[in-house]
């Protein structure tokens, strides 16, 4: 294959593949990303599924998409606006045109813009012909007919041939970005090796698309994204939900405590349940419960019986688990509750991401009921935060809520594969058989942690439960002084964990004009504008929190270093509310977006610039 001689180097490119649900856009996007990764680009992907399973063909509701940003520098997000949009039908163009940057390239299947499809998607005239797309570089490729004719020698039905339209489109994009098709072929072989005919169809369509792009003049300049300088090692592309599941598997192996998951399916958390169901060979026991309450309660039972027990859910499910979280707090058993947040309240917008369960995680229980709250901030670091949540939970005998969100859970990025042996050790405080000093609520004087006495172990029979207990002995008690003391102990135990977690980092200087504060899934979308402004010499810093309850011990110091502090969240101001109660002396600004969308670089850059320039708050 001849490579086009003239191309421009670009630091990063954002591409979105969109089409009807059945058009194979997820596959095209995944192949594109994997090919880029083999070449050496960094990347971040995000699938954009329709809420409906099978919406009517060619309708706006049925549009499925896959967005990816590839780069020669570290990539923090799937990108805001696309440089290239591949739109397989009018409906997908209509819903996604707003995400294409002016001057961007739009690749379409011109054959799909027929009268019926145009009408179904609400176009009054054909946008490919009426000049409405003049600000873009439009590639009108007759993808459907070309696919049919290029595959005619393979003697398959037109319908069968048209299934490879996505590969034809991918071929065009591969040319536009000067990608090496050999790697893509290899992935196709891995995927379709057992179905030679399908493999042949896809390979032929891919090459045909590439060759088509090479011969038409409409294409003009092409691009190349040079290799990123990634740290040496083995990488894989991983989604946040899979990374979460694997983090727990690693923690289980490292701690020697078998993994148990009790869970009930709910978008966007179900992937964790699905992933762990596939890993039975590693000994994980997965219980798909009858509801969220049974999910968490089974996990509490498994925890008492000595497992690293977890339960996974999303917002509405967390609501159902509240009472049982209290039981885990009271019984002081290890338990990790993962909440892959989505837009609420109630059923809300299940497929859209949000950060609006923070207050529920912090406070949503009866009684004085402290729980560790942490949040992952990139798809890949879900692995490490799941691991750390498990470690803290077991070593401190206390439940941990780990917050991720739909954006992290479904998004994916490159993950440098660690060795389990290099991860920090996990030492659960197991009680020893026949230890005469064992008492259910006897504690380590330093950490206030009680011991884990596992059923089956000789000489340690004991009962625990949700009723208030006396310290040390664990007998049921309504003694007034004891209750107040026990509440103090449970709170203190959790607060002491601040000594074990890393101090809060700032991206930037310790002091300056504007400190941007954020937490959870927004790290990447905030880092991008912050770094750009820092390059311009602006005195802006970024403190992104992964540990929320307790906060890192240096948090006050971090917040005090800057002239202005702005807390950016995808909710109505929950973290800022918490910070105000913890550090009321600091003056906070806040920026809140609650549209089921991530922050965009443009809006943040403008906001930050304005705040840096104005004197007063």
């Amino acid at each position: 294959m001849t490579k086009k001689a003239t191309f421009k180097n670009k630091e990063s490119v954002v591409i979105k593949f969109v089409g009807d649900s059945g058009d194979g856009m997820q596959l095209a996007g995944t192949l594109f990303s994997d090919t880029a990764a083999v070449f050496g680009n960094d990347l971040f992907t995000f699938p954009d599924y329709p809420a409906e399973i099978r919406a009517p063909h060619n309708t706006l509701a049925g549009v499925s998409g896959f967005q990816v940003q590839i780069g020669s520098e570290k990539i923090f997000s799937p990108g805001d606006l696309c440089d290239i949009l591949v739109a397989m039908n009018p409906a997908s163009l209509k819903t996604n045109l707003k995400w294409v940057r002016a001057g961007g390239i739009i690749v379409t299947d011109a054959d799909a813009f027929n009268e019926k499809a145009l009408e179904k998607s609400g176009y009054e005239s054909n946008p490919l012909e009426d000049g409405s797309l003049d600000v873009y570089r439009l590639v009108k490729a007759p993808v459907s007919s070309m696919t049919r004719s290029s595959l005619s020698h393979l003697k398959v039905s037109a319908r069968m041939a048209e299934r490879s339209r996505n590969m034809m489109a991918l071929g065009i994009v591969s040319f536009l970005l000067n990608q090496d098709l050999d790697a893509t072929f290899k992935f196709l072989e891995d995927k379709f090796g057992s179905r030679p005919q399908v493999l042949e169809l896809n390979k032929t369509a891919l090459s045909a698309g590439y060759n088509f792009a090479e011969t038409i003049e409409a294409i003009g300049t092409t691009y190349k994204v040079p290799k990123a300088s990634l740290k040496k090692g083995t990488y894989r592309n991983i989604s946040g939900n899979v990374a979460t599941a694997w983090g727990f598997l690693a923690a289980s192996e490292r701690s020697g405590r078998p993994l148990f998951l009790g869970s009930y399916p709910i978008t966007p958390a179900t992937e964790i349940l699905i992933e762990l169901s596939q890993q039975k060979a590693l000994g994980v026991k997965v219980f798909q419960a009858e509801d969220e309450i049974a999910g968490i309660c089974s996990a509490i039972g498994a925890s008492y019986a000595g497992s690293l027990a977890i339960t996974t859910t999303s917002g509405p499910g967390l609501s159902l688990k509240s009472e049982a979280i209290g039981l885990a707090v009271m019984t002081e058993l290890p338990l990790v509750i993962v909440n892959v947040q989505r837009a609420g309240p109630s059923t809300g917008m299940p497929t859209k991401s949000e950060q609006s369960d923070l207050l529920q995680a912090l406070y949503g229980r009866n009684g004085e009921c402290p729980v560790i709250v942490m949040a992952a901030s990139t798809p890949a670091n879900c692995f490490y935060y799941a691991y750390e949540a498990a470690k803290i939970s077991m070593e401190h005998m206390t439940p941990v809520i780990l917050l991720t969100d739909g954006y992290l859970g479904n998004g994916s990025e490159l993950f440098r594969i660690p060795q389990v042996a290099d991860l920090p050790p996990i030492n659960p405080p197991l009680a020893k058989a026949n230890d005469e000093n064992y008492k259910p609520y006897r504690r380590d004087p330093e950490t206030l942690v009680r011991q884990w006495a596992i059923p089956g172990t000789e000489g340690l029979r004991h009962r625990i439960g949700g009723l208030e207990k006396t310290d040390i002995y664990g007998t049921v008690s309504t003694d007034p002084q004891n209750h107040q003391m026990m509440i103090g102990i449970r709170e203190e135990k959790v607060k002491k964990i601040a000594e074990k977690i890393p101090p809060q980092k700032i991206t930037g200087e310790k002091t300056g004009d504007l400190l941007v504060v954020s937490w959870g899934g927004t790290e990447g979308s905030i880092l991008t504008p912050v770094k750009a402004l820092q390059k311009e010499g602006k005195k802006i810093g970024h403190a992104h929190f992964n540990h929320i309850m307790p906060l890192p011990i240096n948090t006050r110091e971090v917040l005090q270093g800057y002239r202005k502090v702005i807390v950016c969240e995808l909710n109505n101001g929950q973290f800022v509310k918490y910070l105000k109660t913890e550090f009321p002396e600091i003056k906070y600004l806040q920026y809140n977006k609650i549209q089921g969308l991530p922050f965009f670089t443009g809006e943040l850059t403008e906001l930050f610039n304005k705040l840096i320039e104005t004197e007063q708050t």
Partner: protein
Amino acid sequence: MISNRILQSEQELSKEDFVSDQMVKWCPGCGAHAILKAIENVFPEIGYKKENFMFVSGIGCSSRFPYYVNTYGIHGIHGRAAAIATGVKLANPGLSVWIATGDGDSMAIGGNHFIHIIRRNLDVNILLFNNQIYGLTKGQYSPTTPIGSITRTSPHGTVEHPFVTAGLVMGAQGTFFARVPDNNIKMMTEVMFEAARHDGTAVIEILQNCIIFADGTHSQVTGKEVRDDYQLHLKHGEPMLYGKNKEKGIQMKGQKLQGVVVGLNGVEMEDILIHDRYEKNPGIHRMLGKMGPPVLPVALGVIRSAEFETYDDMVEVQIESAREQTEIKSVDDLLKSGETFNVT
């Protein structure tokens, strides 16, 4: 002795091995005391290592049970004992798991978990203290309170059709169901042993008297004057006879069970049904479960004990076969599986 995957005790155990140091706080005269006695009788007989017994409960008078037996135990939250026990048993199938629950705990707030644990046939034993009332909260009607009953929350009588526990259990595809009165410790002990021997979810409905809020609710069955005529003690392989001199029996007439007198109206011994608790088809078990006064006696003892695969066994088998079939032996293997890229 029962042999299965649960470890047997090396020493002979006695009642004292299971007596807890906690003060038993049920009302004097409460039927729960007898249930505790029966457990203390049966655990040494079952003979598992004492550390391998585990009690799980929800909330209610009945759910205080774990504090009163010296085993591992969790006193959970209202309605969720079955869910907690599921986690315990799956995490460690080598434990003998016992659930203590009330009629409200298991069939009102915990109804969902109750039917699902039964449907899955998890190998646990459920002691269902059916006092037909909410005891702990002081006397509100429950899902098993007879229609028309006056309680704290039904001053004009309840207008709810009660559950027949047996019907619910068998409707949920229960594999083991037994019913016992709280004033027959011997029968209770025997039935508990049979429950332990059964692989799968064993539900024992105990007709328990709450002397404070529903005194005499079962007296139509348990009362001295009526019990001969209203108790049918089922024994596997034996004819279903009752009455003071076992002169009465249960016969299948058409599609219904009928009470008949042997020797009267041409009824002979051969006409009386023989109890087969192991029959997989629940048809007659269901009829027996629903049977009761004023015309017929209440079936007591083990009504059903049918053999079906247990959930916990199937989980273990799947894990074993997954282990045999995979190349992925560790998390490191998993991390490196599939598409990976080397940066050198």
